[in-house]
């Protein structure tokens, strides 16, 4: 996937680019608004990630210019939520999503995947790791060929873990993605939810449960060799 990142804070660029590359994304980066607009106009990207506060042309102006020029490339705005009126303008101007700082790179990647799916349609609808299959559109789950009835939270959680098999997600990361960042992190809701998923999957078959807990850290989806 080809991504343009327009962001002037070098350290943010560092870890975002790293995260993207690990996901196999191709990243082009630009720290100036004017250059960013020129690049976005000149080439085709799958997703553009725009910071709002930029030297030169600001993110909203770039977005406006792109939409005016007829570019429909999905745009994700990096905003400080609730900041000012012009953040609303971002969505009105045709931004496809926004993410508030500070954010988890994993969350940014998940959002980009979601954007990508929205644009490209069917291609990524089926997520399958080992014996577990997930249909993102019909929200059906099957384990060893047998369908498992998962609730909304359970589905979102397992989908989040499945997207990066082998990677450990902390409870806070899971909470933020599945429940929203304002959810009280001291609750054990993540553990309860994982237990419920395990129970439901365990009932339907005998295979190894794909979700592993990592002591003191969180959970991960078992990577298959």
């Amino acid at each position, binding site marked *: 996937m080809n991504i343009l990142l327009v962001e002037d*804070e070098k*350290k943010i660029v560092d870890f975002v680019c790293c995260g993207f590359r690990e996901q196999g994304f191709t990243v082009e980066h630009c720290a100036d608004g004017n250059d960013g607009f020129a690049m976005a106009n000149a080439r085709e990207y799958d997703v553009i990630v725009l910071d709002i506060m930029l030297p030169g042309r600001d993110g909203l102006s770039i977005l406006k210019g792109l939409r005016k020029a007829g570019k429909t490339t999905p745009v994700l705005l990096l905003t400080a*939520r609730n900041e000012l009126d012009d953040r609303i303008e971002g969505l009105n101007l045709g931004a496809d999503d926004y993410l508030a700082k*500070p*954010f988890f790179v994993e969350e940014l990647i998940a959002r980009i995947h979601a954007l990508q799916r929205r644009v490209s349609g069917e291609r990524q609808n089926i997520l399958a790791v080992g014996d577990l299959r997930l249909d993102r559109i019909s929200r059906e789950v099957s384990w060893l060929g047998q369908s498992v009835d998962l609730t909304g939270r359970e589905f979102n959680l397992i989908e989040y873990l499945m997207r990066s098999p082998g990677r450990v997600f902390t*409870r*806070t990361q899971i909470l933020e993605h599945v429940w929203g960042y304002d959810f009280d992190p001291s609750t054990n809701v993540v553990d309860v939810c994982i237990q419920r998923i395990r129970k439901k999957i365990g009932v339907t078959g005998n295979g190894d449960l794909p979700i592993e807990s*990592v*002591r003191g*850290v969180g959970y991960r989806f078992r990577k298959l060799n």
Partner: protein
Amino acid sequence: MKSKSLRLRLALWSVLLAGVALASFAAIAWWQLRDAKIEALDRQILDQSERELSRHWSEDHWKHHEHNMGRLLGAHDIHQTLLIMQDDNGLVYRSSHWPESLNPDQLPWPQLEDRPTPEKATDSMNSDGANPPPVGREDPEFSFPPPMRTRHSPPLFPPEDFPPPPGEPPRLHLPAFTKLSLDVGGHPWRFGLATAPHGKLAIGVDLTVVEADMTELRNAFLLATPLALGFIALSAWFLSGLALSPIRHLTSTMESVTAKGLDKRIAVGKEDQEFRQLIQVFNNMLERLERSFLQASRFSGDAAHELKTPLAILQGQIERAMAKCEPGSPIQTSLTSILDEVQRLGTISRKLLLLSLADAGRLHLYMSEINLTQALEDLLEDAQMLAPELDVRGSIAFGLTVKADAELFRQVLHNLLSNAIKYNLPKGWIHINAARQGERIEVSITNASLGIPDADRERIFERFYRADQSHNRQIEGVGLGLSLSREIARAHGGDLLLTETEVGQVRFEMYLPT
């Protein structure tokens, strides 16, 4: 001490001052009028005495004269008069009802005094050095008015009536007068005593009529004064209300000034000359307040905003480092707890920003279509997961959607749910209901509870109010507070209410426009 209304005090003071003024006026007027009446009577008596003393009269004449005295005195309503006349030979006439107790000899008859010159005659009119009166008192200020004396005295006593003793130089024998008030038979009487060379005349008039007049007048005053005072009280109340109306205006404006309405100013009215300065000072104060409030609000907003970039960097770097660690290694475990704390910091800064925006009235909504049915089913699920010991039930209509700010709306729901769990009873229950009610959607969360005391029902929506008074980690967690939840509901055109329920449960209802 209870503070009293300025308006009331103004009115009371007005009444007090007006009351004192009215009472003194009435008293003085009453005395003056009484004096004037008695003086007029005195004058009549004097006239009579002067006329009657000019000649010797028989007893019959005096009798007749007494009979007509009332008319002669020019006062028809004077019914009781007394008369006594005695000359050198003794009593000429004495009224039949002259009281025995009143000895004519003991009356303070004025001394007749010879004056060689008419110029000095005026002085002789006064009785000086007379015998002290046996009863009653002599008016010390007694004197006949000058015009009378100069007009009447010389021609009234022609020398042919009282021829001077031969061999002496011609002298004017002027009668001397005095007057006094006496108490006769329990009634006040006014007496005029005259001494002429050929006899003494006393004329007494019953003052009952005068006193009756004065009593009537006094009663009129006693009646009119409270009426006037009542009128003054009403006027003062009205006028002070009028005078205080700019203050009330000021008060109502001050009341309408909240953290969100600091831009309000009081219009300087044309008629408020005296209040203009106060209003200007108040307006200036508001302006400074608004400025510093905006600065404070902007500061916490800016601070929260400024925190975001370093937090984002911190969070991203830790996340990266974690991904590189051996899963479950000690370093990954400690990085996890660092990441949790960084995330908590991020949440705090977001909440601060939200609160500062809400305080400044700049809580903006990112409206989008929300599947309310789904959101509430998620909420039900959360409730089951968060509180497995509770009996959680839901009755949620299908296909409910609302236009709302997804994040803020979710926060309100989480807030209501966490309250329902926190203040539940052991092995209690939670019911979540949602349905369309005409033009609006009604969401209610009911839980078993000890109940909220009536005193707390109003305060529960106050900022920073907590029923359990635990303020630790206020911003953290769901702790948005019902105050902000209600503000969010209202910003969406709905409302959040604590509704009356039967004992043993608490129900919050949220209304949202469809």
